[in-house]
């Protein structure tokens, strides 16, 4: 276990993201962040959460923190198809961005946890992420770190012995609730009334988005805000080829294992077949087979690759996939479990280009700046 304090992450983060937004400050295009009654935001708690988020000591090899896969300099994701954790082991899922995750009604691609607090407890003890057997080493590290002891005392009024994972989760979630970003060119155009905030191509692309592209049905835009998600789960055809013809066997095997006590979080991240069951693994509802949560589209230009398995490398690939009705190639087989909302779109090349231009109008300046300065620092 490393004894050295992880100063690099926390300090450079402040440089990259600029000052944390003031509490209660809501960017254009977003609603107020929902704050649970039992976990109010305080500056000290947010700061503590920031440090915990970046602490690599909470992993079996002392190298993996939350920020490993949710890197502040990469729009809080890792730009890898699927994430790499402890010992470079790979999971099955693409790291969703933490930015605006505070608005999600459930967490993880399959919604298996209901809150940021509950979500944060899983990765450290997943064999392909943090690699710890249980949470004990985390608490031990915290209780032996004078800075943490003081911070937990200040934030939660607890003695070292009274610190629990519940406190850790609350602090991390509090920090994550400050990672929100709106005010994109689209927000300024649509909600702010700035007519030239988007280019002609982007404006045409928005028409494709709400019209022939049918994107808005799941990636919702409302009267006063746009989360670009419906918080529902849909089978859009991703990953079908891998389990084609084997779904019933995989489902039966998974349910059997789950009934015998297998952990869903560990199973779906370590078993590529089980991963493709999507929401079904959580709900056991037949209509949820291979259905995954609708992710936000905010900052999508910075969060490649795409889909739950990172299988679409570029926005062009992604648009083509939808245009083919949930297929990589137009003649690929169609999943019988495919959502009724997915069908061939018959978009022209111009419409596809415009749609992609529009998606690039969803980048928040704060996120773009953090990403750019990280790239500059790396040179």
């Amino acid at each position, binding site marked *: 276990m490393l004894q050295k304090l992880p100063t690099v992450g926390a300090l450079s983060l402040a440089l990259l993201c600029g000052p944390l937004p003031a509490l209660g400050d809501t960017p254009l295009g977003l609603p107020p962040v929902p704050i649970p009654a039992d976990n109010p935001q305080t500056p000290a708690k947010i700061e503590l959460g920031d440090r915990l988020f970046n602490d690599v000591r909470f992993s079996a090899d002392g190298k993996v923190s939350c920020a490993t896969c949710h890197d502040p300099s990469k729009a809080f994701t890792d730009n890898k198809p699927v994430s790499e954790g402890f010992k470079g082991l790979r999971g099955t899922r693409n790291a969703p961005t933490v930015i605006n995750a505070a608005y999600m009604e459930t967490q993880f691609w399959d919604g298996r946890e209901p809150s940021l607090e509950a979500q944060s407890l899983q990765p450290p003890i997943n064999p392909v992420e943090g690699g710890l057997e249980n949470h004990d080493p985390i608490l031990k590290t915290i209780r032996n770190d004078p800075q943490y002891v003081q911070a937990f005392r200040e934030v939660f009024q607890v003695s070292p012995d009274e610190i629990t994972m519940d406190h850790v989760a609350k602090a991390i979630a509090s920090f994550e609730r400050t990672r929100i970003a709106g005010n994109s060119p689209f927000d300024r155009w649509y909600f702010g009334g700035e007519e030239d905030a988007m280019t002609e191509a982007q404006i045409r692309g928005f028409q494709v988005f709400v019209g022939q592209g*049918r994107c808005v049905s799941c990636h919702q835009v409302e009267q006063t805000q746009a989360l670009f998600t419906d918080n529902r789960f849909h089978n859009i055809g991703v990953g079908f080829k891998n389990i084609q013809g084997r779904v019933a066997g995989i489902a039966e095997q998974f349910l059997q294992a789950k009934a015998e006590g297998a952990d869903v979080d560990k199973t779906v991240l370590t078993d590529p077949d089980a991963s493709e069951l999507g929401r079904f693994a959580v709900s*056991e509802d037949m209509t949820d087979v291979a259905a995954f949560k609708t992710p936000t589209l905010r900052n999508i230009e910075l969060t490649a690759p795409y889909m739950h398995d990172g299988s679409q490398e570029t926005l062009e690939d992604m648009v083509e996939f939808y245009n083919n009705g949930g297929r990589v190639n137009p003649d690929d087989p169609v999943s019988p479990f495919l959502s*009724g*909302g997915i069908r061939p779109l018959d978009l022209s090349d111009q419409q596809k280009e415009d749609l992609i231009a529009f998606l690039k109008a969803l980048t928040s300046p704060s996120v773009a700046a953090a990403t750019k300065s990280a790239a500059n620092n790396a040179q």
Partner: protein
Amino acid sequence: MSMKRRDFLKTGGALLAAGSLPLSLVEVAFGKESPQNFTFAFISDSHITHIKGNEFVRNWDMGLKRAIAEANLMTPRPDFIIYGGDIAQLGTKEEIDHGLELMGALRGKVHYVMGEHDYYVDLGDYWRKQLGPDYYSFDHKGVHFVVLNSIVTYDEWTHQDWDSPMARMKEMARLDNPNGSPFMVGPTQREWLRKDLEKVDRDTPIVVLSHSPLQKIYKGWNFWTDDAEEVQALLKPFNKVTVLYGHVHQIQYNQIGNISFHAVMATAWPWPYPSTYSQEASHLPKLTVEMNRADPFFERDATGWQFINMDSGNIDVHYTLPDNSNRVVAFNEDKGHPEDTKYQAEGNQIPPQEHY
């Protein structure tokens, strides 16, 4: 749902949700295979539609494929599957063949019911050639199942001077058609049914599988069986009777005397409820809680299929509804009729879609 089952579910956790897999539900509940408890699946109204050559309407194909893929997930396997009629849209050889080819992917034995879309082009010849008789009975684990062809009509209508068999088919395929004719079971089958039931003990649970409702709900759309009362009278002597019917493409349920009625979903498209069409009186059962309006973005919304638990002679129907909230309509022993386990109470219904 029997008290025994409900007690078990209370101790075993939440009520089994529709659509979740009935993992050994009945077996676990009763500790051993009780003779009158088993599960079967019910798929209906796929309306496979031929365009030309080997092209078929994608949406209807997808509906049937989905129901089959989901039904194949059931573990343990259902004892058998019922197909509730209208596998074809215009009863052609191409449509029936394509529908049966898709059904070939389904694991398990299927019992087929005749629908009017399967029948009125050749009066069921090709369907019967592929699938056998269109009315018959069978026994399973102490339950007597009766399959009726309840979509025949008056001979004068059927055998009038048509331009072509397809002209007759297309008349019967329409709703609100003044040139249509009401469905019935007819005297031949009623006599067969009387004789068939003579051999059956009064305590034996009866399940009647029919395409039309065996009730008089709404004549304009043939949610109707002209000799419903006569058929019901033949079923009256038995203690527990359940009628399962397709055709209406929506959730309906009712209780008339000793008979519980349940409609099943279509895999193809939903029909509106007769209450939306107020030119004429409809008699949708007061018991029925209507489904929430479908979201047109999702082709599969308000379509689906169902698995059915036969429990001590009564059934609970688990409606599996993609892109919507699944529903369970179960027999309530205290009240003596079926009811929705979640939405029956007033004020519990799902509000209509609000976003587009």
